[in-house]
């Protein structure tokens, strides 16, 4: 569970990045965080993880995100970075996956079991001892998700999980996300992927929440999306064109 209570954040005094943000993501929910560039999606993620601190209150699994509780919070939240190369910093996939479990005090045997379980869950056993700099972009993204699964977090945050992937690998990542039971918050511009993986969407614009509701409703609302510098997902744009020929899509 993640809860933001009246959270504001700014890098400079005059220009706020987030303004009075409040929302709650319940256990097991899958929520898409969408918005144009600069809307504040990545900042929301970083605040939830305690990489940035702002005004207001943020709770992760009931624990307040504060300097004193960071270790506890980060043990519960896994973060899949947009650039997998920045996430996979060890020489091999195995070492990357075992990194967090060992840091959280598990024995090597227990940690190994977690690694094997996570690899098995994603069908990536053959990647286990491969070198990170010698696997493809798609494999790296899947391995990055596996490193987070090895932590067995309650909540998973993902920043643009489908970016820079070919259609085949994108579909694999989408299916993988759909199979994850954890609470998920996914920031992305890929609205088709959000439609496929999330039941709820939060739309941000210039640091404020402008819509929060069922993905199927918000992502079909062309007026709302276009008013906030977004477009209908490609899969729905065709539908809209059929209903309203000449809509310009």
């Amino acid at each position, binding site marked *: 569970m993640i809860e933001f209570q009246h959270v504001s954040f700014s890098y400079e005094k005059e220009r706020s990045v987030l303004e009075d943000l409040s929302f709650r993501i319940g256990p097991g929910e899958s929520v898409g965080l969408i918005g144009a560039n600069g809307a504040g999606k990545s900042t929301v993620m*970083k605040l939830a*993880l305690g*990489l940035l601190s702002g005004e207001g209150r943020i709770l992760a699994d009931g624990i307040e995100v504060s300097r004193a509780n960071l*270790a506890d919070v*980060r*043990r519960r*939240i*896994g*973060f899949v*970075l947009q*650039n997998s*190369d*920045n*996430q996979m*910093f*060890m*020489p*091999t996939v*195995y*070492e990357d996956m*075992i*990194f*967090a479990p*060992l*840091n*959280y005090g598990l024995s*090597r045997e227990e940690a190994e079991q977690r690694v094997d379980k996570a690899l098995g869950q994603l069908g990536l056993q053959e990647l286990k001892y491969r*070198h*990170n*700099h*010698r696997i493809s972009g798609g494999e790296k993204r899947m391995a990055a998700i596996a*490193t987070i699964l090895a*932590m067995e977090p309650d909540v998973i945050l993902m920043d643009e999980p489908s970016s820079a992937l070919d259609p085949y690998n994108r579909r694999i990542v989408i299916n993988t996300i759909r199979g994850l039971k954890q609470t998920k918050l996914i920031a992305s511009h890929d609205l088709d992927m959000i439609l496929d993986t999330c039941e709820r969407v939060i739309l941000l614009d210039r640091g404020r929440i402008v819509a929060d509701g069922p993905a199927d409703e918000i992502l079909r609302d062309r007026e709302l999306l276009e008013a906030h510098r977004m477009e209908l997902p490609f899969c729905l744009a065709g539908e809209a064109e059929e209903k309203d020929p000449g809509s310009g899509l």
Partner: protein
Amino acid sequence: MNKMEKALHELGEMDDLTAMDSPIHRLSPLAKLLTAIIYIIVVVSFRKYDLSGLAVMLLFPVILFQISGVPVRTCFYKLRIVLPLVMAVGLFNPLYDRAPLLTLGSLPVSGGVVSMLSLMLKGLLCLMASFLLIATTPIDSLCAALRKLHLPSTLVTLLLLTYRYVGVMTEELAVMTDAYHLRAPGQKGIHVSAWGSFLGQLLLRSMDRAQELYGSMLLRGYHGHFHYAPGRRFGLWDALYTAGSSAVFLLLRFVNAAELLGRLVVR
């Protein structure tokens, strides 16, 4: 394939070498590291005119190349940039030390020439030993061995991350170089006027990446040190290899085997 892509390819080749299987590859990383360190110390400690004694030390890398199956050609190819620099260290010795030390037939050879050859050989032997160590030991096992020798954690982490990210930064540089050449047709290399911005951009990108990488480490519980894979245990064979090799090195250091052999032959 441009230069950067070639560099990446070569980096991949090192991984292939460490993935080979041989008695040397199967030795404990700590045994290989200790032996290499002792070998380098012994090689460096030879007196500057003791060329014949030093030449015998060449046996160790030659034997290791044979047993490990690592091609000698690959070693020299990979060391092609650093080798001339090491070789150049004693280049001026013949100018300073002109006193004749020995004669080859009727040709007098000065001490400077002998010490120059000795320095060159020392450099070559140390490089070959280091190359064999990294060609037969995966980087993480090597880091684990370095930590066992109580090398500071920060230094070992730096080594590990440099190895991991040298490829990524090379890729970044390859993209920048391609982008430059696409807009500077017919130009050979990168013009001096662009060097500053090139390096600046690379530094900025490295800093961004480093920041995100560090964040990623913190999010996965990093608190100052890495847990390296334990790797192969230091067993009886490892102890025998280290002790045996070290004993031979020390023996060769104090007993000039080449000279002894020469005397036997001359008699």
